[in-house]
């Protein structure tokens, strides 16, 4: 019994570790030329964002993408609504995670730029990308990201599921607060436009009146000069 449990426990640990690694179903994309790839996310206030990434480089020998530990990734997060104020600037390894919390509601620009990579230019061969860098990204936004970051596996029992539902409700609540703020901004914008219409109509009326007065006085003085009036 003890021998069986020792052997199985090491495989269990191996399986658990494998589950914590980035799931193979996550989204990935290719980057060329060292250009940063940026995503713009509108985040309500106090939203937690957790990202797991893994950078792979194409190697011409094996003709495949493989993790290369000399390559790193620079992650920067800017608040575009606040003069591009940088709130996160992090340099990481080829495989890693990053996390940040949105201090204010608004649009955040999340940029990824590979560092230390060998400049093979990517090109398409028969529909498949060859060369360049492949970045696998798993971005979790919201309260659920807390659960996902600590227990990257799945929810095992009812209590965990209810906690997940609670987290999603909090997300919805925060999004509604954000939506209220934006609606107030929209209302302000509409009122400003309305006031502008009134203002420009008055300006046009004034210009019209002045032009009419000038026309009449000019013509009157012209006719008097011509001795017709």
């Amino acid at each position: 019994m003890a021998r069986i449990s020792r052997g199985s426990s090491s495989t269990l640990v191996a399986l658990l570790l494998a589950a914590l690694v980035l799931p193979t179903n996550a989204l990935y994309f290719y980057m060329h030329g060292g250009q940063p790839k940026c995503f713009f996310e509108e985040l309500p206030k106090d939203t937690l964002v957790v990202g797991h990434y893994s950078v792979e480089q194409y190697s011409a020998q094996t003709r495949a993408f493989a993790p290369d530990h000399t390559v790193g990734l620079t992650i920067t997060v800017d608040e575009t609504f606040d003069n591009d104020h940088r709130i996160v600037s992090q340099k990481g390894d080829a495989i890693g995670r990053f996390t940040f919390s949105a201090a204010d509601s608004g649009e955040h620009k999340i940029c990824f730029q590979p560092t230390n990579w060998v400049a093979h230019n990517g090109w398409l061969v028969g529909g498949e990308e060859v060369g360049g860098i492949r970045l696998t990204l798993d971005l979790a936004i919201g309260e659920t990201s807390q659960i996902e970051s600590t227990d990257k596996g799945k929810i095992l029992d009812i209590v965990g599921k209810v906690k997940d539902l609670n987290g999603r409700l909090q997300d919805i609540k925060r999004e509604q607060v954000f939506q209220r703020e934006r609606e107030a901004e929209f209302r302000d914008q509409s009122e400003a436009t309305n006031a502008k219409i009134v203002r420009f109509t008055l300006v046009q009326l004034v210009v019209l009146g002045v032009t009419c007065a000038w026309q009449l006085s000019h013509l009157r003085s012209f006719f008097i000069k011509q001795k017709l009036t």
Partner: protein
Amino acid sequence: MRSSILAAGIAALYAVTASATALTYKLQPNEKSCFYTQVTQRGAKVAFYFAVQSGGSFDVDYSVVGPSARIIMEGSKERQGDFVFTANDVGEYRFCFNNEMSTFADKTVDFEIAVENESRAQIPSKQGSSPEQTSVLEESIIKLSSQLSTIHRNQKYFRTRENRNFSTVRSTERRIFNFSIIESLMMVAMAGLQVFIVRFFFQGARKGYV
């Protein structure tokens, strides 16, 4: 005993894997950008949602290509889309957005790609609760979960429409300003032209004949 529960729990980790990634990407004019995901299990359901948040007339070309270059779906000048398809092949699936129709407007596209594999093993419930109880609870939790997903989708829809409304109002404001300036200038120009013509009628040799 404990290790068997642990083993079942770890097996459950692999049983239900649903991964969803939601990102918002800004497409420059004349840019084509693709995102990829690997489907490891035949028959997995892939959900693809996208909505253009801002830019131009809020539409974008898209295409979904499966392994061996098989086109699963494509559309042009679509504002938003919400599709679920079954992935019959194992391999790399490519989701591409194309802004080549636009020469100066950049489009912001909010998209979500979710891959859901079927569950094979049942998750063991806590000891000491009857199976009927837990299945009723599980059912209501699943219902709640799907309703929350609906609410979340609705919120995304409202956000997209609100962005469009904002863009309309801003464009209205700009247009009012431009048209007012143009109209004032035209009024002044017309007044000057009228005065000039009347003077021309009554000047010189034509004095007294009009």
